[in-house]
Protein backbone atom coordinates (compact mmCIF):
# COMPACT_ATOMS: atom_id res chain seq x y z
CA UNK A 1 0.00 0.00 0.00
CA UNK A 2 2.74 2.40 1.01
CA UNK A 3 4.84 1.22 -1.88
CA UNK A 4 2.00 1.91 -4.29
CA UNK A 5 1.57 5.43 -2.93
CA UNK A 6 5.26 6.04 -3.27
CA UNK A 7 5.23 4.80 -6.83
CA UNK A 8 2.30 7.01 -7.67
CA UNK A 9 4.02 9.96 -6.14
CA UNK A 10 7.17 9.25 -8.12
CA UNK A 11 5.27 8.99 -11.42
CA UNK A 12 3.38 12.16 -10.71
CA UNK A 13 6.58 13.95 -9.73
CA UNK A 14 8.19 12.80 -12.96
CA UNK A 15 5.26 14.08 -14.97
CA UNK A 16 5.23 17.42 -13.24
CA UNK A 17 8.92 17.92 -13.67
CA UNK A 18 9.46 16.31 -17.04
CA UNK A 19 10.44 19.65 -18.55
CA UNK A 20 13.18 20.28 -16.04
CA UNK A 21 14.36 16.72 -16.43
CA UNK A 22 14.76 17.05 -20.16
CA UNK A 23 16.49 20.42 -19.72
CA UNK A 24 18.86 18.75 -17.30
CA UNK A 25 19.55 15.96 -19.74
CA UNK A 26 20.28 18.43 -22.48
CA UNK A 27 22.75 20.25 -20.23
CA UNK A 28 24.42 16.95 -19.49
CA UNK A 29 24.66 16.23 -23.19
CA UNK A 30 26.20 19.60 -23.92
CA UNK A 31 28.71 19.23 -21.11
CA UNK A 32 29.75 15.81 -22.30
CA UNK A 33 30.19 17.14 -25.78
CA UNK A 34 32.81 19.63 -24.68
CA UNK A 35 36.02 17.87 -23.65
CA UNK A 36 37.58 20.93 -22.08
CA UNK A 37 34.58 21.47 -19.85
CA UNK A 38 34.80 17.85 -18.80
CA UNK A 39 38.44 18.34 -17.88
CA UNK A 40 37.62 21.42 -15.86
CA UNK A 41 34.74 19.66 -14.16
CA UNK A 42 36.94 16.69 -13.28
CA UNK A 43 39.62 18.85 -11.77
CA UNK A 44 37.14 20.70 -9.63
CA UNK A 45 35.37 17.56 -8.52
CA UNK A 46 38.70 16.11 -7.56
CA UNK A 47 39.51 19.26 -5.63
CA UNK A 48 36.23 19.06 -3.76
CA UNK A 49 36.65 15.41 -2.90
CA UNK A 50 40.19 16.01 -1.70
CA UNK A 51 39.02 18.91 0.43
CA UNK A 52 36.19 16.98 2.03
CA UNK A 53 38.12 13.79 2.67
CA UNK A 54 41.38 15.47 3.62
CA UNK A 55 41.65 13.82 7.02
CA UNK A 56 41.27 10.40 5.39
CA UNK A 57 43.50 11.01 2.41
CA UNK A 58 46.37 12.97 3.85
CA UNK A 59 49.17 10.67 4.95
CA UNK A 60 50.39 12.99 7.70
CA UNK A 61 49.20 15.74 9.95
CA UNK A 62 49.79 19.08 8.24
CA UNK A 63 50.72 21.06 11.31
CA UNK A 64 53.02 18.91 13.39
CA UNK A 65 56.63 19.80 12.95
CA UNK A 66 59.34 17.22 12.50
CA UNK A 67 62.48 19.26 12.77
CA UNK A 68 64.67 16.23 12.25
CA UNK A 69 63.31 15.77 8.76
CA UNK A 70 63.41 19.27 7.35
CA UNK A 71 63.59 19.99 3.64
CA UNK A 72 63.64 16.36 2.62
CA UNK A 73 63.36 15.76 -1.11
CA UNK A 74 60.42 13.80 -2.58
CA UNK A 75 60.64 10.16 -1.57
CA UNK A 76 58.46 7.18 -1.00
CA UNK A 77 57.68 8.30 2.52
CA UNK A 78 57.00 11.89 1.53
CA UNK A 79 55.80 11.95 -2.03
CA UNK A 80 56.24 15.67 -2.42
CA UNK A 81 59.00 16.11 0.12
CA UNK A 82 58.93 18.08 3.38
CA UNK A 83 59.14 21.79 4.04
CA UNK A 84 61.44 23.85 6.25
CA UNK A 85 59.72 22.64 9.40
CA UNK A 86 59.61 18.97 8.40
CA UNK A 87 55.96 18.94 7.53
CA UNK A 88 54.77 16.71 4.70
CA UNK A 89 54.07 18.91 1.71
CA UNK A 90 51.55 16.57 0.16
CA UNK A 91 49.43 16.58 3.29
CA UNK A 92 49.63 20.34 3.54
CA UNK A 93 48.54 20.70 -0.05
CA UNK A 94 45.64 18.36 0.57
CA UNK A 95 44.44 20.34 3.53
CA UNK A 96 45.14 23.52 1.61
CA UNK A 97 42.50 22.53 -0.93
CA UNK A 98 39.86 22.89 1.69
CA UNK A 99 41.16 26.28 2.69
CA UNK A 100 41.20 27.52 -0.87
CA UNK A 101 37.68 26.32 -1.49
CA UNK A 102 36.55 27.78 1.78
CA UNK A 103 37.84 31.22 0.83
CA UNK A 104 36.12 31.03 -2.50
CA UNK A 105 32.80 29.95 -1.06
CA UNK A 106 32.77 32.62 1.60
CA UNK A 107 33.72 35.40 -0.77
CA UNK A 108 31.00 34.41 -3.19
CA UNK A 109 28.54 33.93 -0.38
CA UNK A 110 29.04 37.55 0.53
CA UNK A 111 29.36 38.99 -2.94
CA UNK A 112 26.62 37.28 -4.85
CA UNK A 113 23.74 38.17 -2.55
CA UNK A 114 25.12 41.65 -1.93
CA UNK A 115 25.76 42.35 -5.57
CA UNK A 116 22.43 40.95 -6.68
CA UNK A 117 20.49 42.90 -4.08
CA UNK A 118 22.13 46.20 -4.91
CA UNK A 119 22.07 45.58 -8.64
CA UNK A 120 18.40 44.63 -8.74
CA UNK A 121 17.39 47.65 -6.74
CA UNK A 122 19.54 50.02 -8.75
CA UNK A 123 18.33 48.65 -12.06
CA UNK A 124 14.66 48.38 -11.25
CA UNK A 125 14.04 51.62 -9.44
CA UNK A 126 16.59 53.84 -11.15
CA UNK A 127 16.73 57.43 -10.07
CA UNK A 128 18.79 58.52 -7.11
CA UNK A 129 19.05 55.01 -5.63
CA UNK A 130 20.66 53.89 -8.83
CA UNK A 131 23.05 56.85 -8.78
CA UNK A 132 24.16 56.23 -5.20
CA UNK A 133 24.74 52.55 -5.68
CA UNK A 134 26.56 52.96 -8.92
CA UNK A 135 28.83 55.73 -7.64
CA UNK A 136 29.67 53.55 -4.67
CA UNK A 137 30.51 50.75 -7.05
CA UNK A 138 32.62 53.12 -9.10
CA UNK A 139 34.63 54.10 -6.05
CA UNK A 140 35.47 50.51 -5.27
CA UNK A 141 36.22 49.71 -8.88
CA UNK A 142 38.58 52.64 -9.26
CA UNK A 143 41.35 50.74 -7.53
CA UNK A 144 43.23 47.75 -8.89
CA UNK A 145 41.82 44.75 -7.18
CA UNK A 146 44.89 43.38 -5.50
CA UNK A 147 45.96 46.76 -4.21
CA UNK A 148 42.57 47.50 -2.79
CA UNK A 149 42.44 44.07 -1.21
CA UNK A 150 45.84 44.66 0.29
CA UNK A 151 44.83 48.00 1.65
CA UNK A 152 41.69 46.65 3.26
CA UNK A 153 43.47 43.57 4.48
CA UNK A 154 46.17 45.63 6.12
CA UNK A 155 43.64 47.93 7.71
CA UNK A 156 41.63 45.08 9.14
CA UNK A 157 44.55 43.06 10.28
CA UNK A 158 46.32 40.16 8.66
CA UNK A 159 44.33 37.00 8.98
CA UNK A 160 42.35 34.70 6.74
CA UNK A 161 38.96 36.01 7.70
CA UNK A 162 39.91 39.57 6.93
CA UNK A 163 41.38 38.48 3.63
CA UNK A 164 38.06 37.06 2.66
CA UNK A 165 36.27 40.25 3.61
CA UNK A 166 38.80 42.32 1.72
CA UNK A 167 38.46 40.28 -1.46
CA UNK A 168 34.69 40.33 -1.18
CA UNK A 169 34.72 44.09 -0.92
CA UNK A 170 36.75 44.42 -4.10
CA UNK A 171 34.50 42.18 -6.11
CA UNK A 172 30.93 43.09 -5.24
CA UNK A 173 30.71 45.97 -7.75
CA UNK A 174 31.15 43.58 -10.62
CA UNK A 175 28.15 41.53 -9.58
CA UNK A 176 26.11 44.57 -8.78
CA UNK A 177 26.76 46.01 -12.22
CA UNK A 178 26.00 42.75 -13.89
CA UNK A 179 22.77 42.34 -11.97
CA UNK A 180 21.82 45.91 -12.72
CA UNK A 181 22.45 45.46 -16.44
CA UNK A 182 20.37 42.33 -16.55
CA UNK A 183 17.59 43.99 -14.59
CA UNK A 184 17.55 46.97 -16.92
CA UNK A 185 16.97 44.81 -19.94
CA UNK A 186 14.64 42.32 -18.30
CA UNK A 187 12.34 44.91 -16.82
CA UNK A 188 11.49 46.19 -20.30
CA UNK A 189 10.31 42.80 -21.44
CA UNK A 190 6.66 42.21 -22.02
CA UNK A 191 6.14 39.57 -19.39
CA UNK A 192 7.08 42.10 -16.73
CA UNK A 193 4.48 44.47 -18.10
CA UNK A 194 2.06 41.58 -17.95
CA UNK A 195 2.77 41.07 -14.26
CA UNK A 196 2.16 44.73 -13.61
CA UNK A 197 -1.14 44.48 -15.42
CA UNK A 198 -2.04 41.57 -13.19
CA UNK A 199 -1.38 43.69 -10.14
CA UNK A 200 1.78 41.95 -8.92
CA UNK A 201 3.74 44.01 -6.42
CA UNK A 202 7.19 45.34 -7.25
CA UNK A 203 8.80 43.13 -4.64
CA UNK A 204 7.30 40.00 -6.13
CA UNK A 205 8.28 41.10 -9.60
CA UNK A 206 11.86 41.57 -8.49
CA UNK A 207 12.19 38.37 -6.54
CA UNK A 208 10.13 35.93 -8.56
CA UNK A 209 10.40 37.29 -12.05
CA UNK A 210 13.60 39.23 -12.51
CA UNK A 211 15.93 37.49 -10.08
CA UNK A 212 15.65 33.99 -11.57
CA UNK A 213 16.63 35.36 -14.95
CA UNK A 214 19.68 37.20 -13.65
CA UNK A 215 20.99 34.19 -11.86
CA UNK A 216 22.44 32.37 -14.82
CA UNK A 217 24.62 35.27 -15.96
CA UNK A 218 25.76 35.87 -12.42
CA UNK A 219 26.59 32.25 -11.80
CA UNK A 220 28.58 32.08 -14.99
CA UNK A 221 30.50 35.16 -13.94
CA UNK A 222 31.05 33.74 -10.48
CA UNK A 223 32.44 30.52 -11.93
CA UNK A 224 34.82 32.50 -14.07
CA UNK A 225 35.88 34.49 -11.03
CA UNK A 226 36.57 31.49 -8.85
CA UNK A 227 40.02 31.10 -10.26
CA UNK A 228 40.66 34.79 -9.66
CA UNK A 229 39.62 34.58 -6.05
CA UNK A 230 42.03 31.78 -5.33
CA UNK A 231 44.77 33.64 -7.09
CA UNK A 232 44.23 36.86 -5.18
CA UNK A 233 43.91 35.05 -1.89
CA UNK A 234 47.15 33.27 -2.61
CA UNK A 235 48.69 36.59 -3.42
CA UNK A 236 47.50 38.09 -0.16
CA UNK A 237 48.84 35.18 1.83
CA UNK A 238 52.08 35.39 -0.07
CA UNK A 239 52.40 38.99 1.06
CA UNK A 240 51.72 38.03 4.63
CA UNK A 241 48.26 39.51 4.78
CA UNK A 242 46.17 36.41 4.66
CA UNK A 243 46.58 33.11 6.31
CA UNK A 244 49.11 33.05 9.08
CA UNK A 245 51.48 30.22 9.88
CA UNK A 246 51.03 27.33 10.50
CA UNK A 247 47.89 27.28 8.29
CA UNK A 248 48.53 25.12 5.23
CA UNK A 249 47.39 27.83 2.83
CA UNK A 250 48.94 27.44 -0.61
CA UNK A 251 49.91 31.07 -0.99
CA UNK A 252 51.53 31.09 2.41
CA UNK A 253 53.42 27.95 1.54
CA UNK A 254 54.91 29.65 -1.49
CA UNK A 255 55.74 32.71 0.55
CA UNK A 256 57.59 30.86 3.28
CA UNK A 257 59.11 28.46 0.80
CA UNK A 258 60.34 31.09 -1.61
CA UNK A 259 63.84 31.24 -0.30
CA UNK A 260 64.30 27.56 -0.97
CA UNK A 261 63.40 27.81 -4.64
CA UNK A 262 66.90 27.11 -5.98
CA UNK A 263 68.09 24.34 -3.75
CA UNK A 264 64.97 22.69 -2.39
CA UNK A 265 62.70 23.55 -5.31
CA UNK A 266 59.87 21.26 -4.16
CA UNK A 267 58.97 23.44 -1.24
CA UNK A 268 57.41 26.37 -3.11
CA UNK A 269 56.85 24.63 -6.45
CA UNK A 270 54.25 22.05 -5.52
CA UNK A 271 51.95 24.54 -3.82
CA UNK A 272 52.41 26.66 -6.93
CA UNK A 273 51.27 23.80 -9.11
CA UNK A 274 48.30 23.28 -6.88
CA UNK A 275 47.21 26.88 -7.37
CA UNK A 276 47.83 26.56 -11.09
CA UNK A 277 45.75 23.42 -11.35
CA UNK A 278 42.87 24.82 -9.33
CA UNK A 279 42.72 28.10 -11.25
CA UNK A 280 43.01 26.22 -14.54
CA UNK A 281 40.20 23.88 -13.59
CA UNK A 282 37.90 26.72 -12.62
CA UNK A 283 38.66 28.65 -15.76
CA UNK A 284 37.86 25.69 -17.97
CA UNK A 285 34.68 25.00 -16.07
CA UNK A 286 33.68 28.63 -16.17
CA UNK A 287 34.26 28.89 -19.89
CA UNK A 288 32.35 25.71 -20.48
CA UNK A 289 29.38 26.84 -18.42
CA UNK A 290 29.33 30.15 -20.19
CA UNK A 291 29.29 28.50 -23.58
CA UNK A 292 26.58 26.11 -22.54
CA UNK A 293 24.42 28.84 -21.09
CA UNK A 294 24.56 30.71 -24.34
CA UNK A 295 20.98 30.66 -25.56
CA UNK A 296 22.08 30.35 -29.14
CA UNK A 297 23.39 26.92 -28.52
CA UNK A 298 20.41 25.75 -26.60
CA UNK A 299 17.26 27.08 -28.08
CA UNK A 300 16.95 25.09 -31.22
CA UNK A 301 13.37 24.61 -30.32
CA UNK A 302 11.76 27.49 -32.19
Amino acid at each position, binding site marked *: MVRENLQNWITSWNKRHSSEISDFK*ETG*YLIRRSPLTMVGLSIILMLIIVAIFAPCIAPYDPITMHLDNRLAPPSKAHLLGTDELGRDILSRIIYGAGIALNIMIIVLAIDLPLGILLGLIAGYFGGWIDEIIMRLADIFMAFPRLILAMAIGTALGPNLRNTMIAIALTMWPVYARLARGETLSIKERTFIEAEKALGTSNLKILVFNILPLCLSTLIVRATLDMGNIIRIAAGMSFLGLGAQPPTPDWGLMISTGRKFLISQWWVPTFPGFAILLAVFGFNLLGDGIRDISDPHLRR*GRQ
Partner: protein
Amino acid sequence: MVKDLLLEIKDLRINFYTYRGVVKALNGVNLKIYKGEFFGLVGETGCGKSVTASGVLNLVQNPGKIERGEIIFKGKDLLKMSKEEIREKIRGKEITMIMQYPVSALNPVMNNGDQIAEGLIANKNMSEREAKKRVIELLREVNIPEPKKIARQYPHQLSGGMAQRVMIAMMLSTEPSLLIADEPTTALDVSIQAQVLSLLKDLISKHKATVLLITHDLSVVAETCDRVGVMYAGDMVEVGEVDQIINNPQHPYTKGLINAIPSDRRKELVEIRGSVPDLVNPPSGCRFHPRCDYVRDLCKNEKPKVLQVEKNHIVACFLYEGGYEGGESGRTD
Protein backbone atom coordinates in the same frame (compact mmCIF):
# COMPACT_ATOMS: atom_id res chain seq x y z
CA MET B 1 4.56 33.41 -76.21
CA VAL B 2 7.53 31.25 -75.47
CA LYS B 3 8.71 31.81 -71.94
CA ASP B 4 12.38 31.43 -71.13
CA LEU B 5 13.13 29.29 -68.12
CA LEU B 6 15.38 31.26 -65.77
CA LEU B 7 15.48 29.10 -62.68
CA GLU B 8 14.47 25.50 -62.26
CA ILE B 9 14.57 23.74 -58.91
CA LYS B 10 14.36 19.97 -59.16
CA ASP B 11 13.62 17.68 -56.26
CA LEU B 12 15.38 19.83 -53.67
CA ARG B 13 15.76 18.14 -50.33
CA ILE B 14 17.26 19.92 -47.35
CA ASN B 15 17.65 18.54 -43.84
CA PHE B 16 18.67 20.19 -40.59
CA TYR B 17 20.58 18.05 -38.12
CA THR B 18 19.62 19.34 -34.69
CA TYR B 19 19.81 18.06 -31.13
CA ARG B 20 16.19 17.00 -31.26
CA GLY B 21 16.59 15.06 -34.46
CA VAL B 22 16.66 15.52 -38.20
CA VAL B 23 14.34 18.24 -39.42
CA LYS B 24 13.24 17.31 -42.91
CA ALA B 25 12.73 20.87 -43.98
CA LEU B 26 12.41 20.47 -47.74
CA ASN B 27 10.88 17.30 -49.04
CA GLY B 28 11.65 17.36 -52.73
CA VAL B 29 10.64 20.79 -53.94
CA ASN B 30 10.13 21.51 -57.63
CA LEU B 31 9.83 24.98 -59.01
CA LYS B 32 10.14 26.74 -62.35
CA ILE B 33 10.59 30.46 -62.68
CA TYR B 34 10.47 32.11 -66.09
CA LYS B 35 12.30 35.16 -67.25
CA GLY B 36 10.52 38.43 -66.59
CA GLU B 37 7.88 37.14 -64.23
CA PHE B 38 6.94 38.10 -60.71
CA PHE B 39 6.65 34.83 -58.84
CA GLY B 40 5.20 34.55 -55.37
CA LEU B 41 6.14 31.78 -52.96
CA VAL B 42 3.55 31.59 -50.23
CA GLY B 43 3.34 29.60 -47.03
CA GLU B 44 3.25 29.80 -43.29
CA THR B 45 6.01 29.36 -40.72
CA GLY B 46 8.02 26.24 -41.26
CA CYS B 47 6.80 25.57 -44.79
CA GLY B 48 10.32 25.94 -46.13
CA LYS B 49 9.96 28.99 -48.31
CA SER B 50 12.93 30.84 -46.82
CA VAL B 51 14.98 27.67 -46.78
CA THR B 52 14.30 27.32 -50.51
CA ALA B 53 15.63 30.82 -51.06
CA SER B 54 18.80 30.09 -49.10
CA GLY B 55 19.13 26.90 -51.07
CA VAL B 56 19.12 28.81 -54.33
CA LEU B 57 21.97 30.96 -53.14
CA ASN B 58 23.67 27.94 -51.58
CA LEU B 59 23.59 29.71 -48.25
CA VAL B 60 22.21 26.84 -46.25
CA GLN B 61 23.99 27.04 -42.93
CA ASN B 62 25.02 24.41 -40.45
CA PRO B 63 23.26 22.32 -39.20
CA GLY B 64 21.43 22.38 -42.52
CA LYS B 65 22.53 20.33 -45.43
CA ILE B 66 21.36 20.09 -49.01
CA GLU B 67 20.74 16.40 -49.39
CA ARG B 68 19.96 16.32 -53.06
CA GLY B 69 18.40 18.14 -55.93
CA GLU B 70 19.35 20.45 -58.75
CA ILE B 71 19.08 24.18 -58.97
CA ILE B 72 19.46 25.10 -62.60
CA PHE B 73 20.02 28.77 -63.24
CA LYS B 74 20.50 29.83 -66.83
CA GLY B 75 21.33 26.28 -67.76
CA LYS B 76 23.92 25.61 -65.06
CA ASP B 77 23.40 23.66 -61.85
CA LEU B 78 24.22 26.03 -58.99
CA LEU B 79 24.72 23.17 -56.57
CA LYS B 80 27.54 21.81 -58.67
CA MET B 81 29.36 25.11 -58.92
CA SER B 82 32.43 25.79 -56.86
CA LYS B 83 32.09 28.11 -53.89
CA GLU B 84 34.26 30.71 -55.57
CA GLU B 85 32.20 30.73 -58.70
CA ILE B 86 29.01 31.20 -56.77
CA ARG B 87 30.49 33.96 -54.70
CA GLU B 88 32.04 35.80 -57.58
CA LYS B 89 29.48 35.43 -60.25
CA ILE B 90 26.14 34.61 -58.76
CA ARG B 91 25.51 35.93 -55.29
CA GLY B 92 24.99 39.64 -55.22
CA LYS B 93 25.44 39.82 -58.95
CA GLU B 94 23.19 37.62 -61.00
CA ILE B 95 20.97 36.71 -58.09
CA THR B 96 20.43 39.22 -55.30
CA MET B 97 18.26 39.16 -52.23
CA ILE B 98 16.42 41.66 -50.06
CA MET B 99 15.13 40.69 -46.66
CA GLN B 100 12.61 41.53 -44.02
CA TYR B 101 14.69 43.81 -41.84
CA PRO B 102 16.72 45.99 -44.17
CA VAL B 103 18.31 48.11 -41.48
CA SER B 104 20.03 45.10 -40.00
CA ALA B 105 21.13 43.88 -43.42
CA LEU B 106 22.93 47.14 -44.07
CA ASN B 107 26.39 47.85 -42.73
CA PRO B 108 25.91 50.23 -39.82
CA VAL B 109 29.30 51.88 -40.08
CA MET B 110 29.19 52.80 -43.74
CA ASN B 111 26.99 55.52 -45.10
CA ASN B 112 24.27 54.49 -47.50
CA GLY B 113 25.87 55.86 -50.61
CA ASP B 114 29.19 54.17 -49.97
CA GLN B 115 27.56 50.81 -49.46
CA ILE B 116 25.89 50.90 -52.83
CA ALA B 117 29.02 52.31 -54.45
CA GLU B 118 31.09 49.51 -53.00
CA GLY B 119 29.22 46.96 -55.05
CA LEU B 120 29.46 49.04 -58.20
CA ILE B 121 33.19 49.57 -57.87
CA ALA B 122 33.87 45.94 -57.16
CA ASN B 123 31.60 44.34 -59.69
CA LYS B 124 31.28 46.81 -62.48
CA ASN B 125 34.76 48.21 -62.33
CA MET B 126 33.53 51.73 -62.01
CA SER B 127 35.72 54.49 -60.73
CA GLU B 128 34.74 56.08 -57.45
CA ARG B 129 33.36 59.10 -59.25
CA GLU B 130 31.29 57.08 -61.70
CA ALA B 131 29.99 54.94 -58.89
CA LYS B 132 28.93 57.91 -56.79
CA LYS B 133 27.05 59.34 -59.74
CA ARG B 134 25.34 56.05 -60.41
CA VAL B 135 24.37 55.78 -56.73
CA ILE B 136 22.44 59.04 -56.92
CA GLU B 137 20.74 57.86 -60.09
CA LEU B 138 19.75 54.61 -58.44
CA LEU B 139 18.42 56.35 -55.34
CA ARG B 140 16.34 58.56 -57.51
CA GLU B 141 14.99 55.57 -59.36
CA VAL B 142 13.74 54.10 -56.12
CA ASN B 143 11.91 57.33 -55.39
CA ILE B 144 14.07 58.47 -52.54
CA PRO B 145 13.62 62.19 -52.04
CA GLU B 146 16.86 64.17 -51.57
CA PRO B 147 19.11 61.34 -52.71
CA LYS B 148 22.34 63.22 -52.00
CA LYS B 149 21.33 63.73 -48.39
CA ILE B 150 20.24 60.12 -47.94
CA ALA B 151 23.45 58.90 -49.52
CA ARG B 152 25.44 60.67 -46.84
CA GLN B 153 23.28 59.32 -44.04
CA TYR B 154 23.69 56.05 -42.19
CA PRO B 155 21.30 53.11 -42.13
CA HIS B 156 20.08 53.70 -38.60
CA GLN B 157 18.78 57.10 -39.65
CA LEU B 158 16.47 55.55 -42.18
CA SER B 159 12.88 54.56 -41.63
CA GLY B 160 11.84 51.03 -42.56
CA GLY B 161 10.43 52.02 -45.91
CA MET B 162 13.43 54.11 -46.87
CA ALA B 163 15.86 51.44 -45.78
CA GLN B 164 14.06 48.92 -47.92
CA ARG B 165 14.32 51.23 -50.87
CA VAL B 166 18.04 51.66 -50.28
CA MET B 167 18.33 47.86 -50.23
CA ILE B 168 16.41 47.64 -53.48
CA ALA B 169 18.71 50.25 -55.01
CA MET B 170 21.71 48.24 -53.86
CA MET B 171 20.33 44.99 -55.16
CA LEU B 172 19.43 46.44 -58.51
CA SER B 173 22.79 48.12 -58.96
CA THR B 174 24.36 44.97 -60.27
CA GLU B 175 21.54 44.44 -62.74
CA PRO B 176 20.66 40.98 -61.53
CA SER B 177 18.72 38.47 -63.51
CA LEU B 178 16.88 37.28 -60.43
CA LEU B 179 15.89 39.29 -57.38
CA ILE B 180 14.75 37.31 -54.37
CA ALA B 181 12.66 39.30 -51.91
CA ASP B 182 12.16 37.48 -48.61
CA GLU B 183 9.23 39.04 -46.76
CA PRO B 184 10.33 42.53 -47.82
CA THR B 185 7.26 44.36 -46.60
CA THR B 186 6.15 42.28 -43.65
CA ALA B 187 7.68 44.66 -41.15
CA LEU B 188 6.39 47.78 -42.87
CA ASP B 189 3.21 49.73 -42.39
CA VAL B 190 0.45 49.20 -44.92
CA SER B 191 0.83 52.58 -46.56
CA ILE B 192 4.58 52.12 -46.88
CA GLN B 193 4.14 48.53 -48.04
CA ALA B 194 2.03 49.78 -50.91
CA GLN B 195 4.79 52.20 -51.91
CA VAL B 196 7.51 49.57 -51.82
CA LEU B 197 5.52 46.95 -53.72
CA SER B 198 4.49 49.33 -56.45
CA LEU B 199 8.11 50.44 -56.71
CA LEU B 200 9.21 46.84 -57.13
CA LYS B 201 6.69 46.27 -59.87
CA ASP B 202 7.76 49.38 -61.75
CA LEU B 203 11.41 48.59 -61.50
CA ILE B 204 10.90 45.04 -62.60
CA SER B 205 9.25 46.03 -65.80
CA LYS B 206 11.85 48.74 -66.39
CA HIS B 207 14.90 46.60 -65.73
CA LYS B 208 13.41 43.44 -67.16
CA ALA B 209 14.36 41.54 -64.04
CA THR B 210 12.64 38.53 -62.54
CA VAL B 211 11.41 38.53 -58.97
CA LEU B 212 10.85 35.71 -56.53
CA LEU B 213 8.72 37.16 -53.75
CA ILE B 214 8.52 35.13 -50.56
CA THR B 215 5.72 35.98 -48.19
CA HIS B 216 3.06 34.59 -45.91
CA ASP B 217 0.56 37.18 -47.13
CA LEU B 218 -1.57 35.80 -49.93
CA SER B 219 -3.19 39.18 -50.51
CA VAL B 220 0.17 40.75 -51.28
CA VAL B 221 0.82 37.99 -53.76
CA ALA B 222 -2.64 38.45 -55.26
CA GLU B 223 -1.92 42.06 -56.00
CA THR B 224 1.63 41.88 -57.25
CA CYS B 225 2.50 38.48 -58.65
CA ASP B 226 1.98 36.76 -61.96
CA ARG B 227 2.30 33.23 -60.69
CA VAL B 228 2.12 31.68 -57.26
CA GLY B 229 3.54 28.61 -55.56
CA VAL B 230 1.96 27.46 -52.30
CA MET B 231 4.17 25.57 -49.87
CA TYR B 232 3.24 23.47 -46.88
CA ALA B 233 5.62 21.68 -44.51
CA GLY B 234 8.43 21.36 -47.02
CA ASP B 235 6.33 20.50 -50.05
CA MET B 236 5.15 22.55 -53.00
CA VAL B 237 1.47 21.76 -52.95
CA GLU B 238 0.07 23.95 -55.71
CA VAL B 239 1.45 26.21 -58.43
CA GLY B 240 -0.46 28.34 -60.88
CA GLU B 241 -1.28 31.76 -62.19
CA VAL B 242 -2.48 34.16 -59.56
CA ASP B 243 -6.07 34.21 -60.75
CA GLN B 244 -6.17 30.47 -60.93
CA ILE B 245 -4.93 30.03 -57.38
CA ILE B 246 -7.16 32.69 -55.87
CA ASN B 247 -10.33 31.86 -57.75
CA ASN B 248 -9.88 28.18 -58.43
CA PRO B 249 -7.74 26.75 -55.63
CA GLN B 250 -7.48 23.00 -55.79
CA HIS B 251 -5.36 21.89 -52.85
CA PRO B 252 -7.28 21.63 -49.58
CA TYR B 253 -4.54 23.61 -47.87
CA THR B 254 -4.73 26.43 -50.38
CA LYS B 255 -8.48 26.53 -49.93
CA GLY B 256 -8.04 26.50 -46.16
CA LEU B 257 -5.55 29.33 -46.33
CA ILE B 258 -7.84 31.48 -48.43
CA ASN B 259 -10.71 30.87 -46.03
CA ALA B 260 -8.61 31.74 -43.02
CA ILE B 261 -7.37 35.09 -44.26
CA PRO B 262 -9.19 38.21 -43.23
CA SER B 263 -9.92 39.70 -46.60
CA ASP B 264 -12.38 41.68 -48.54
CA ARG B 265 -14.19 38.46 -49.28
CA ARG B 266 -15.46 37.17 -46.06
CA LYS B 267 -17.10 38.06 -42.86
CA GLU B 268 -15.76 35.07 -40.99
CA LEU B 269 -12.51 33.28 -40.60
CA VAL B 270 -12.55 29.54 -41.11
CA GLU B 271 -9.93 27.56 -39.24
CA ILE B 272 -7.82 24.76 -40.58
CA ARG B 273 -8.06 22.08 -37.97
CA GLY B 274 -4.90 20.71 -36.38
CA SER B 275 -1.54 22.40 -36.45
CA VAL B 276 1.65 22.61 -38.47
CA PRO B 277 3.50 19.29 -38.15
CA ASP B 278 6.82 18.71 -36.46
CA LEU B 279 9.23 18.16 -39.29
CA VAL B 280 11.39 15.83 -37.24
CA ASN B 281 8.56 13.34 -37.49
CA PRO B 282 6.49 14.55 -40.37
CA PRO B 283 3.25 12.79 -41.26
CA SER B 284 3.61 9.89 -43.69
CA GLY B 285 2.48 10.19 -47.26
CA CYS B 286 0.95 13.59 -47.87
CA ARG B 287 2.19 15.86 -45.10
CA PHE B 288 -1.12 17.68 -44.97
CA HIS B 289 -3.25 14.59 -44.43
CA PRO B 290 -3.82 14.94 -40.64
CA ARG B 291 -5.53 18.27 -41.23
CA CYS B 292 -7.33 17.50 -44.43
CA ASP B 293 -11.09 17.23 -44.61
CA TYR B 294 -10.87 15.01 -47.69
CA VAL B 295 -8.27 12.58 -46.45
CA ARG B 296 -8.32 8.99 -47.71
CA ASP B 297 -6.12 6.00 -46.88
CA LEU B 298 -4.03 6.60 -49.96
CA CYS B 299 -3.03 10.01 -48.64
CA LYS B 300 -1.50 8.49 -45.52
CA ASN B 301 0.69 6.08 -47.41
CA GLU B 302 1.94 7.74 -50.52
CA LYS B 303 3.27 11.14 -51.39
CA PRO B 304 0.81 12.70 -53.83
CA LYS B 305 1.81 13.00 -57.47
CA VAL B 306 1.74 16.32 -59.19
CA LEU B 307 -1.29 16.61 -61.42
CA GLN B 308 -2.32 19.18 -63.97
CA VAL B 309 -5.55 20.98 -63.25
CA GLU B 310 -5.61 23.36 -66.18
CA LYS B 311 -3.02 25.09 -68.30
CA ASN B 312 -0.27 26.47 -66.05
CA HIS B 313 -1.95 25.13 -62.95
CA ILE B 314 -0.66 22.09 -61.09
CA VAL B 315 -1.49 20.59 -57.73
CA ALA B 316 -0.01 17.79 -55.63
CA CYS B 317 -3.07 16.02 -54.32
CA PHE B 318 -4.77 12.68 -54.88
CA LEU B 319 -8.16 14.31 -55.11
CA TYR B 320 -7.45 15.28 -58.64
CA GLU B 321 -6.43 11.98 -60.09
CA GLY B 322 -7.53 12.06 -63.66
CA GLY B 323 -6.61 15.68 -63.99
CA TYR B 324 -9.98 17.21 -63.41
CA GLU B 325 -11.74 18.48 -60.38
CA GLY B 326 -13.37 15.77 -58.36
CA GLY B 327 -11.51 12.76 -59.69
CA GLU B 328 -12.58 9.40 -58.37
CA SER B 329 -14.50 10.61 -55.40
CA GLY B 330 -16.78 12.67 -57.54
CA ARG B 331 -16.56 15.62 -55.18
CA THR B 332 -17.06 19.08 -56.51
CA ASP B 333 -16.12 22.06 -54.44
